[in-house]
């Protein structure tokens, strides 16, 4: 899997064969992976919304959406269309500029973070050197959008929701970053590709979840808190705050929040699978299977096959995590705001610091297993 398929190279060669210069070929190539990732993110949201409806129905012994398409699979599309054609209301006493800018500022960083999600050796938009650090930096922009929309709504529930969202996001970002740091320490690189390759040695046995069990749990809790999923959905706790910062929003602006939160959920699930569950790796290394079956690993057809297995594995792992997140949402009660902050600052932060120290110590003691 060192070289793998290089679609960009093949595409550019094809366009050069048609008589175009390499720069123009590059410009034609550039939007393609971005569009593809954007479309897959939105399709991922549709699937997740459908799953959420179906699983919540199952958890409450209902049937759930049934009439829109087989098993109600078209329900999320119907939801989306409804939001698209709804009237866009800006409250008379709201600050209309900030009110409009808020949801945009929430959505853009989330979508930008898909830049670093690899679905295979070369199947990502950009293998930037700062990799996972880019996601940590981008996700810190989001609370500004939430504060902005909370303030601009001119509504006390919205303001409280925005403040809660910012407080929650600041508190959980630190343990999140520290647990990522432990992984980076083991990999010696910030790049997501290197992080996955580092786990690909012995299939399921070399996944980071075995070497970083504490980090995995901290990361998952913090990811749920960053996505504002129950049990941490205090910013929009409907019994206390109506709907938090999104109370005054309607139509497409509300849909942006909705889309943003679900894209963020899928993104977090993908990142957990990349950081801890071996990314695109199959539980048994593909190389061993190929050797066992006597197939040359570098044959073009096998490359296509392994690449598609990689995509399927990444998406499968991510959706198992999404399933757990949805199940958690419909079966656990919500924590209080003081409990939430206590958990973040008094429990997760010290534990993640200790985890980092432990990882550094283990790396020095057993450089073979913890990356030297």
């Amino acid at each position, binding site marked *: 899997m060192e070289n793998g398929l290089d679609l960009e190279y093949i595409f550019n060669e094809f366009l050069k064969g048609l008589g175009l210069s390499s*720069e123009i070929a590059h410009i034609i190539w550039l939007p393609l992976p971005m569009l593809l990732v954007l479309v897959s993110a939105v399709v991922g949201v549709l699937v997740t919304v459908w799953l959420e409806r179906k699983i919540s129905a199952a958890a409450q012994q209902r049937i759930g959406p049934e009439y829109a398409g087989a098993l109600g699979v078209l329900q999320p599309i119907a939801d989306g269309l409804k939001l698209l054609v709804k009237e866009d209301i800006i409250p008379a006493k709201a600050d209309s500029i900030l009110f409009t800018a808020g949801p945009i500022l929430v959505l853009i960083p989330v979508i930008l973070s898909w830049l670093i999600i690899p679905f295979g050796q070369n199947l990502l938009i950009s293998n930037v050197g700062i990799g996972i650090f880019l996601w940590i*930096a*981008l996700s*810190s922009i989001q*609370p*500004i959008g939430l504060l902005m929309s909370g303030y601009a709504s001119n509504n006390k529930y919205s303001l409280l929701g925005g403040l809660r969202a910012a407080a929650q996001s600041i508190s959980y*970002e630190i343990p999140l970053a520290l647990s990522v740091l432990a992984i980076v320490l083991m990999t010696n690189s910030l790049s997501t590709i290197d992080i996955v390759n580092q786990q690909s040695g012995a299939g399921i046995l070399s996944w980071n979840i075995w070497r970083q069990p504490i980090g995995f749990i901290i990361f998952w809790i913090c990811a749920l808190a960053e996505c504002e999923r129950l049990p941490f959905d205090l910013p929009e706790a409907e019994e206390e705050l109506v709907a938090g910062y999104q109370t005054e929003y309607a139509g497409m602006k509300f849909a942006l929040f909705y889309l943003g939160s679900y894209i963020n959920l899928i993104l977090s699930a993908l990142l957990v699978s990349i950081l801890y569950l071996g990314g695109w790796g199959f539980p048994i290394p593909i190389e061993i299977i190929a050797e066992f079956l006597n197939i040359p690993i570098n044959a073009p057809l096998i490359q296509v096959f392994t690449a598609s297995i990689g995509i399927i594995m990444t998406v499968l792992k991510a959706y198992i995590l999404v399933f757990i997140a949805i199940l958690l949402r419909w079966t656990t009660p919500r924590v209080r*705001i003081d409990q939430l902050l206590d958990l973040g600052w008094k429990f997760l932060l010290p534990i993640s610091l200790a985890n980092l120290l432990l990882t550094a110590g283990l790396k020095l003691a057993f450089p073979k297993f913890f990356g030297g």
Partner: protein
Amino acid sequence: MSIAVTTQLICFSVLSLVVIIGALGVVLLESIVYSAFLLCGVFLSIAGLYLLLNASFVAAAQVLVYVGAVNVLIIFAIMLVNKKEDLKPIDNLKSRKIISTAICLTLVSLLIRVDLSKVWVIASPSSSIGEESTFRIGEHLFSDYLLPFEVASVLLLMAMIGAIVLARKDVMNKDIATGLPVDQELIEKTKEPFLIKKN
């Protein structure tokens, strides 16, 4: 001109325009909330300028520290103390404004003078280390810049202790000046239910 150079030029001019106009807005706008949000835009565009200089790690750190921490805290503080208070008009506002403008212009002219008089060494693109820079920054922080790095962490520790002293008012729960008990209520709690208060 190649496409890459053109893109760079466009990005540079847009980003510097945003920085300059945004920074002017931060200073000149009446509403403190708008100023705080514009400051976020300025920080983001400066991160963009770092990206153009091939310093992606510094850019990400800029976003994380300045936008994600400093700016969020500024906005947070503004919104927590959002008291409707009639401020007293300041005397001789006009002369104050003139004096501060003059001082700022002097500083700007000083900076421009430094910029014009010094011969800047511009590294050629081929000698740029690019993605290597993350490793280099780490090496420097733990070798020749170790002392400033450690001193900065002592500064952070002092700030943290100060914050804890301010937050743990229950240790000294009487206001030193007035002798009255200090209000320790969270923002979300009201002392008595609203409905009872009205009757």
